[in-house]
């Protein structure tokens, strides 16, 4: 058999075997180089898979040669392939970037273990996206979560330890809730294969265990992707984690969990589960509106820029799930395309913060006075990323918001109110981005700051690559919106 047929397995198995190998590489630079190489190969595999799916349709890979529904299968359709591409692309850009910040923030003797955990986290995230087995999702969810606790705690700030602990407790509760939900479904349907579940569920849909399962899975996964008001772990975790880890996790971990929600709510519970007029969107929608209003408002009052960005993430998660909760093609397209766009925006902004952390040693707003003159390239990247976050035309942020508002207006009545709320939240984001930009460009630099220099090229190039992608995909939307539309149609069961 050719290698092409094994791509789904290699996508996960390659970073999996690379992680222990990496832990054996004692020289810090070597461990980093190896991780970078692996992340690039993973990206190539993800790109090939997407191309293969777009031309040939859904791919099925039987692990160990055991056919579904007995064996674990990897099922790659448009939405999986898109998720894989997001995770792999962010991995491939952030891993080369990580070198300088990790050297500065993590003790040298732990670098091999740090990159091993990094690769394991990548394995877990890719695994969640690719697998077609509900229990396997749990296993990969825990692989990625456990390694991300370790990555967050690797920071030299002691507050990172409590942040990681808090994340561990809430993350474990979320994963265990998911496990209970899967158990209840297994009890009623006798299968763990997600597509098989979807087929068998209608027979038992109107039963209490299935409704309880829907509740457990929704709440458990919502904890994992930090939907307001279950977001408590997120601000601390992103603020105190090493810069590279913030950039990587902010762009991938929550997105993959939202994908799991999509899979379950539309593919598995897509049927009428017997509660009169029940749609999960009815209770997710108000939470989403609260999420972006509250997230943006709280972000304005933050003095730590990483924390500000973390609260902005809470708001952005609100946008994504809001799009999904409309149950319409436009809304869903907006949600999925924003998964991709926000990954690029937030990762780029956190990478800028990593550059500043390296040179200034702090990301408090008060320490950034006049930084725009010392680090022109870095700060200009922040400005462009910020514009994209706000949703200015010609950036990806605009594309997401455009589709989101289209989706909202389609709802009629309350849709106008939601569209207005999205616009208000965007205005709020203008304020918090402006606070940083104002300080960086219009305040005089404090005495003795002259020795601050531009960030090293190894960090600037990946950052600008992502900023460039922000602009490119803001103009050229065929790939992102096209794929997102196909994925949305697939989830809603509509033929385009």
């Amino acid at each position: 058999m050719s290698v092409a047929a094994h791509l789904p397995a290699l996508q996960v198995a390659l970073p999996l075997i690379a992680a222990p190998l990496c832990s054996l590489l004692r020289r810090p630079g070597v461990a980093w180089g190896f991780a970078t190489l692996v992340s690039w190969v993973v990206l190539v595999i993800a790109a090939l898979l997407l191309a293969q799916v777009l031309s040939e349709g859904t791919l099925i890979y039987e692990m160990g040669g055991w056919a579904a529904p007995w064996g674990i299968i990897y099922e790659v359709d448009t939405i999986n392939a898109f998720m894989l591409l997001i995770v792999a692309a962010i991995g491939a850009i952030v891993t080369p970037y990580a070198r300088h910040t990790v050297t500065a923030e993590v003790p040298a003797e732990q670098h091999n273990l740090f990159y091993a955990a990094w690769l394991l986290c990548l394995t877990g995230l890719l695994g969640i996206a690719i697998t077609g087995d509900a229990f396997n999702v749990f296993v990969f969810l825990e692989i990625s979560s456990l390694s991300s606790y370790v990555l967050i705690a690797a920071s030299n700030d002691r507050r990172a330890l409590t942040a990681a602990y808090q994340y561990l407790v809430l993350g474990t509760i979320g994963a265990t809730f998911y496990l209970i939900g899967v158990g209840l479904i297994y009890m009623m349907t006798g299968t763990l294969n997600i597509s098989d579940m979807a087929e068998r569920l209608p027979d038992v849909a109107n039963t209490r265990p299935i409704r309880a399962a829907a509740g457990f899975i929704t709440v458990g996964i919502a904890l994992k992707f930090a939907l307001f008001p279950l977001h408590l772990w997120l601000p601390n975790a992103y603020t105190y984690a090493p810069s590279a880890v913030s950039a990587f996790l902010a762009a991938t971990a929550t997105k993959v969990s939202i994908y799991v929600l999509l899979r379950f709510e539309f593919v598995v519970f897509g049927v009428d589960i017997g509660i009169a007029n029940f749609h999960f969107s009815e209770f997710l929608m108000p939470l989403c509106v609260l999420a972006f209003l509250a997230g943006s408002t709280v972000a304005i009052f933050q003095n730590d820029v990483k924390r500000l960005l973390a609260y902005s993430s809470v708001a952005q998660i609100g946008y994504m799930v809001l799009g999904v909760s409309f149950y319409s093609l436009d809304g869903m397209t907006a949600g999925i395309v924003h998964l991709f766009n926000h990954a690029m925006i937030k990762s780029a902004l956190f990478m800028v913060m990593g550059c500043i952390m390296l040179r200034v040693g702090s990301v408090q707003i008060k320490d950034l006075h006049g930084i725009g003159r010392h680090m022109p390239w870095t700060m200009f990247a922040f400005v462009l990323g910020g514009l994209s976050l706000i949703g200015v035309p010609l950036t990806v942020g605009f594309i997401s918001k455009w589709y989101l508002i289209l989706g909202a207006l389609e709802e009629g009545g309350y849709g106008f109110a939601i569209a207005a709320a999205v616009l208000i939240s965007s205005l709020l984001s203008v304020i918090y981005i402006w606070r940083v930009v104002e300080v960086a460009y219009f305040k005089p630099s404090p005495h003795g700051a002259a020795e601050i220099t531009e960030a090293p090229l190894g960090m600037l190039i990946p950052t600008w690559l992502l900023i460039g992608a922000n602009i490119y995909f803001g103009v050229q939307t065929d790939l992102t919106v096209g794929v997102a539309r196909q994925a949305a149609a697939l989830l809603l069961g509509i033929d385009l």
Partner: protein
Amino acid sequence: MIHHLIPRVVVKLLIPFVLLFGLYVQFHGDFGPGGGFQAGVIFAAAFILYAMLFGLDHAQRVFPAGVISFFVAAGLILYAGVGFASIVLGGNYLDYDVLAHDPVHGQHRGILWIELGVGITVAAVIVKIFYMFSGRGRD
């Protein structure tokens, strides 16, 4: 250090049997109850018992921390390596059928190697966790 004579003598007698039982559980895994995870824990338990009675330094002389780290990685590499071997031999990832001349033998062989990988990693990880926790705050 106080010399607990009776526990020391008993443990010295017991450890070989614990290790032997660990091996039994390990290699029985492909056609009966047992397997790498349980065996690894039993194996590690023997080491931890030794370390608790004879001190961490003695235990680390038998099984140095650096070697442990190697075994943690080696087991996982063995596991994933079997998967790659089955791809090379023409099957799917982790498809044991192709590992020998006929599928039944292949399954036996595959499970044996996989369980060995699991056993090595689990034993090493448990001992590693013990070393980490008990060695903390000493230096």
